[in-house]
């Protein structure tokens, strides 16, 4: 998937057009700022109070990144264990699925009780929200090996470790990275849920305050900041993917 200059051009034009229409509508219909602030008002809010947003963005980013990294570590570890031990698989798979089915919003208040109102509870929520797809994809990647390759490993007396490190693990990388992309966007949700439920820091907290004070432009700046953070983490994952899998460049080319 190459991105050409025309692609960037059309996207930019479309964004500018959307903002222009939005600005015009709020002015023509005199929409009150607390219902839908004009883009200009949101921009002014962002520029005049940027240290506030920077600080809270940093807090949220920290929570989601740490949560995401832990989710990756826990997810990969669980997947390896599940693939290699039938007993452990039978023991933990049901719990993992149940954990995934329970709405995380419902667990959030409990986590706050257990882990406190600080960053830890938010990190844990980000972890909980995002680890499931990693486990599932990683298991698939470790298992989806061509029968012939496993035969080859046996002929070459590879042993479990070499079969894992030279065949299964690299084979799982594309699966892992596609789940990491999903997880990176989920971790934002986790962190914000945590901030909604309790605490006094982070963009989620700002959104709550903005709502109670009917300062809608503040909500919007927080929302935009959240999207930027999500994009940032997503971009970092794609960057890591490129570095870790140089061969993938040729996969799509050959079809």
């Amino acid at each position, binding site marked *: 998937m190459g991105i050409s200059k025309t692609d960037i051009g059309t996207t930019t034009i479309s964004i500018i057009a959307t903002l222009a229409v939005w600005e015009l509508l709020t002015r023509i219909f005199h929409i009150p700022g607390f219902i839908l602030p004009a883009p200009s008002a949101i921009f002014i809010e962002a520029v005049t109070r940027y240290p506030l947003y920077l600080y809270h963005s940093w807090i949220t980013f920290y929570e989601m990144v740490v949560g995401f990294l832990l989710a990756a570590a826990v997810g990969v570890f669980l997947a390896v264990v599940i693939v290699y031990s039938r007993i452990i698989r039978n023991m933990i798979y049901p719990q993992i699925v149940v954990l995934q089915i329970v709405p995380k919003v419902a667990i959030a208040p409990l986590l706050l009780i257990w882990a406190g109102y600080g960053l830890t509870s938010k990190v844990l929520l980000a972890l909980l929200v995002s680890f499931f797809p990693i486990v599932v994809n990683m298991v698939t990647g470790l298992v989806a090996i*061509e029968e012939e390759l496993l035969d*080859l490993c046996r*002929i070459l007396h590879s042993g479990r470790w*070499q079969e894992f490190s*030279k065949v299964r693990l690299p084979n799982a990388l594309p699966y892992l990275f596609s789940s990491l992309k999903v997880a990176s966007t989920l971790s934002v949700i986790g962190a914000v849920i945590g901030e909604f439920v309790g605490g006094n820091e982070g963009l989620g907290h700002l959104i709550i305050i903005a709502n109670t004070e009917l300062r809608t432009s503040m909500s919007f700046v927080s929302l935009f900041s959240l999207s930027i953070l999500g994009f940032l983490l997503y971009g970092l994952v794609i960057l890591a993917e490129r570095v870790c899998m140089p061969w993938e460049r*040729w*996969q799509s080319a*050959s079809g």
Partner: protein
Amino acid sequence: METSAPGEERHRGTIEVRSLSKVYPSQDGPVQALSEVSFAVADAEFVTIVGHSGCGKSTLLRIIAGLLLPSSGSVTVRGRGVSGPLSDVGMVFQRPVLLKWRTIFDNVMLPIEMLHLPRQENRERALDLLKLAGLVDFRHHYPAQLSGGMQQRAAICRALIHDPSLLLMDEPFGALDLMTREEMNFELLRIWSQRRKTTLLVTHSISEAVFLADRVIVMTPRPGMIADIIDVKLPRPRMPETKLDPRFTECVRMIGRKIGLLYI
């Protein structure tokens, strides 16, 4: 494991298959894949196996490689009973199954790494093999950058790198188009003439079977039994003209008749 027979040198590379049977358990009752199969392959001999789909050809190769246990009967390789996967075997499958994250060179080196053989000495061997297969210029490429035929040639190099005494090939060119396939037959014979391996090759193409082989094993449909073993009395090296030789066409026609009759 049996102890090696006296005069083991004479047996080097020899495969002996004795009244081999294989029954797979399955949901709708047991499936008899092979029944009382017996034959022997001499050192440095090139033997091909033809037979209808599902007659147990892959099963036979996997049992010889020690990847599958027979239900009854036995296989000895160089005088030793086969009881587990043999590392003295080079295996080529219908698909190249290269590791897509490794370059061609690193793919060819995989057996060296897994068998913990000295890397430095074998780098030279790998380069020689790649040269022989016409792939040296592509050694730093990833598999996805190569055509199907080139990938399969790389897979053949990988099968030969640890200098096994047996080469087992399961429809190695089945996935290729006809022209590439004929090219690959020459390539294979060229490589084989330089590194004389005892070779067993499964194919669906009768003319390919005759063109490559010293002997052709014809198998019956399920359960797989040996219908006939045909000596191919054609001179080597085989050339494109070989296919015009009346002995070649006669051989192909005879095997075709045999398989056709079996099918009725």
